[in-house]
């Protein structure tokens, strides 16, 4: 019989306001095996933890039940507390009477009764707990960063600075990400390229960093500390080791009409191209969809002009196998397609542009070399209308996103301000639902746009944009004066919502990392573990976790790097001891468990058993590799003879909980 101690936490008034903690402690004291039961204001505080440790010593407890917040919050804390007092940490069970009781029920009698039942279930489980010892597994001291935007670059630089090797996998021919397309950054208005390109060069020159550009992650196997990753290096038909980035081929290629994705299709590039002048690595790439040589076998001009002899039309995709201890996801974001918002006439007029397109139009390296010209007739625009929240905070009709994209208020203020500064003859209108400017110096920045630069901010939504006689007729409502407004605009700029990159969802499946309904990666804890995925060894950096501006992205990138370093600094990791274990006497070697195991943790071997009349029998039985098993329990249900069981969540334990609840 176990000697169990029950500790009921008040959590200040979080639990005590709806649950009668004294009554819970008194009632549970009468349960079989309970030798000590108490309640305290904050069980997780030092005084509370000392109380638990003292009770373990004085009452010689063999099991501990803590009725408190969710085990997702403090299970680890209480396990450590008990381990320090000499009790096996896996002899601790938590009854979740905060998130799943006091916070959802209002009636004290009902909540108290439920808390008692939850406590009873935990006691019933502890009776069947067995001390577990965690094994260890070695850590591969290298990290992989998926995505080479500012988030990925910052994470990689920080990891490399601490002396560990790190690889960046970037699907585009160059690293740099979305920030390379941005002209100026708010709220300081410094040039994005001037602060980003030195970092890109740093990453390329750092001997600890290896960049796989134009590559994608093909598969991920393994677990924290020991990931096996296959990387697909897409054929760029240029030998990376020979190409000097001189750019001769990109000026001689006869295929001139390829939409330039760097300028969002607003001008053209050649079939062989370097995305932009500061690209890293500065290596040409052939676009197989447009290259005449690759399509028809007739051309070969680039290979003739290449002095380095780097062109290789026979190049194939290459699969590279690598080992990593930690993986950082930095896949970033994309603006949504605004085609669905046809009321703004995006598909009807080239003068209706998205904010990122506007960014390129203002950029000195953009399609107009930084002169703001209307895309339709290349004339100077006089009236500009900015529409906020295109697809953000948009519920109900299924066209947009329910969340706030966070960055649009600020970049629109920036665009409006830059526009007024460069061209004081322009009239700039901004239609908004709310202006949201939390952040250091953000509100001051927005106020400058209104007060110093005379940008017209109008609270209200644009109902319709109609292209007419070379103008854009904007119909909108002013919610504050309750008037209809008609503006003849030269350009309309749409602040499109941002969404996670399309590659994020398949990647999350590969990594078994969880995502929310908007396809943003979820963090292990929204407040306390914001840069870790719930999957051990997977870390989150930048906008893949939620909309973020550049300073926040960089902060999160460095935080993710710090977490990675914490992992890589360890030589060995403690494994989860709650793994499957077969009862060899009952196993009949049928292989049912092996088939359902997602990790390949189960193997079979012939073992000798004692048979009747002093004979020996050789039987095929299952064995589980505890370092590979992640403890999902699929095998325990698949086993027809009931030989397989999961430590910490055994059949008997779960049934004891069921019994306690149904009593």
């Amino acid at each position: 019989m176990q000697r169990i101690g029950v500790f009921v936490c008040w959590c200040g008034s979080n639990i005590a306001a709806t649950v009668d903690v004294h009554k819970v402690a008194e009632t549970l004291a009468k349960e079989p095996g309970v030798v000590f039961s108490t309640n305290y204001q904050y069980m997780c505080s030092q005084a509370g933890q000392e109380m638990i440790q003292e009770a373990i010593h004085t009452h010689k407890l063999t099991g501990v039940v803590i009725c408190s917040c969710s085990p997702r919050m403090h299970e680890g804390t209480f396990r450590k507390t008990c381990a320090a007092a000499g009790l096996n940490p896996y002899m601790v069970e938590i009854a979740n009477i905060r998130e799943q009781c006091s916070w959802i029920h209002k009636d004290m009698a009902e909540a108290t009764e439920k808390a008692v039942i939850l406590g009873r279930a935990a006691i019933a489980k502890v009776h069947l707990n067995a001390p577990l010892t965690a094994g260890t597994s070695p850590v591969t001291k290298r990290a992989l960063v998926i995505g080479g935007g500012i988030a990925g670059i910052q994470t990689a630089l920080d990891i490399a600075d601490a002396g560990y090797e790190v690889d960046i996998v970037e699907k585009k021919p160059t690293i740099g990400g979305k920030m390379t397309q941005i002209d100026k950054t708010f709220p300081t208005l410094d040039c994005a390229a001037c602060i980003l390109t030195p970092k890109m060069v740093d990453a390329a020159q750092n001997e600890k960093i290896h960049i796989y550009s134009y590559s994608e992650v093909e598969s991920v196997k393994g677990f924290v500390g020991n990931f096996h990753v296959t990387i697909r290096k897409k054929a760029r038909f240029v030998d990376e080791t020979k190409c000097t980035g001189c750019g001769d081929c990109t000026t001689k290629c006869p295929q001139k009409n390829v939409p330039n994705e760097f300028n969002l299709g607003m001008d053209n590039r050649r079939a062989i191209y370097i995305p932009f002048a500061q690209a890293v690595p500065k290596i040409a790439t052939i676009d197989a969809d447009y290259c005449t040589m690759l399509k028809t076998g007739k051309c070969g001009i680039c290979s003739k002009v290449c002095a380095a002899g780097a062109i290789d039309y026979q190049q194939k995709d290459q699969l590279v196998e690598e080992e990593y201890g930690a993986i950082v996801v930095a896949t970033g974001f994309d603006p949504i397609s605004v085609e669905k918002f046809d009321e703004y006439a995006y598909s009807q007029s080239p003068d209706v542009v998205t904010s990122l397109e506007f960014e390129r139009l203002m950029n000195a390296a953009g399609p107009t070399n930084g002169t703001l010209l209307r895309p339709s007739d290349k004339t100077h625009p006089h009236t500009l209308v900015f529409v906020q929240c295109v697809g953000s905070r948009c519920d109900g009709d299924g066209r947009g996103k329910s969340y706030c994209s966070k960055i649009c208020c600020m970049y629109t203020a920036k665009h409006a301000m830059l526009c007024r500064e460069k061209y004081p003859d322009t009239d700039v209108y901004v239609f908004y639902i709310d202006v949201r400017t939390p952040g250091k110096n953000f509100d001051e920045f927005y106020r400058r746009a209104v007060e110093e630069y005379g940008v017209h901010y109008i609270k209200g939504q644009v109902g319709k944009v109609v292209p007419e006689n070379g103008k854009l007729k904007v119909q909108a409502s002013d919610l504050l004066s309750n008037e209809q407004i008609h503006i003849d605009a030269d350009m309309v700029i749409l602040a499109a919502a941002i969404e996670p990159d399309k590659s994020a969802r398949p990647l999350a499946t590969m990594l078994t990392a969880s995502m929310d309904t908007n396809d943003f990666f979820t963090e292990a804890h929204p407040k306390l573990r914001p840069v870790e995925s719930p999957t051990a060894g997977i870390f989150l950096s930048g906008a893949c976790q939620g909309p973020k501006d550049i300073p926040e992205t960089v902060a999160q990138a460095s935080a993710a790097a710090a977490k990675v370093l914490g992992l890589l600094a360890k030589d060995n990791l403690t494994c989860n001891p709650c793994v499957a274990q077969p009862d060899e006497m009952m196993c009949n070697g049928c292989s049912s468990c092996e088939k359902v195991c997602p990790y390949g943790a189960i193997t079979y071997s012939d073992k000798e058993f004692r048979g009747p009349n002093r004979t020996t029998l050789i039987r095929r039985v299952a064995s589980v590799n505890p370092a590979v098993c992640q403890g999902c329990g699929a095998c325990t249900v698949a086993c027809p003879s009931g030989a397989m069981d999961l430590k910490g969540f055994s059949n008997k334990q779960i049934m004891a909980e069921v019994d306690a609840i149904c009593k």
Partner: protein
Amino acid sequence: MQVNGEYKPTIVAFCCNWCSYAGADLSGTNRLTYPDNVKIIRIPCSCRLNPMFILRAFQRGADGVILCGCHPGDCHYTTGNYYARRRMTLLFSMLDFLGIERERTRVEWVSAAEGAKFAATMNEFTAQVAKLGENKRLEDLRCKK
């Protein structure tokens, strides 16, 4: 279960540790209420649920049993919820055979972000089970004191 002469169904909810248990926590964090009849048992993955546990719950007097797991494709262990889905389909046809109303069991996918969905599901499921009344068909009277 009878409380003050009023019928109150006993409901056991099995929640996977990674998505649905976190979803249940989130509904608590957001103070979204659902009936106190629902008692949650944490399991590592929905595939850890042996259909036997559900039968055991019915035998011991539960009136409804619900299994919550990660959305298909989102399983922390990649494929666990697919196994759970198939096993539960088999169990449902067996419950049909035993004459247990189908409405007493349910499988629902609740992600860690869907606190509101968890609360709504529990409200709906409790109402559904309450309508059916007490589970007598599989209840083992020997289990009663």
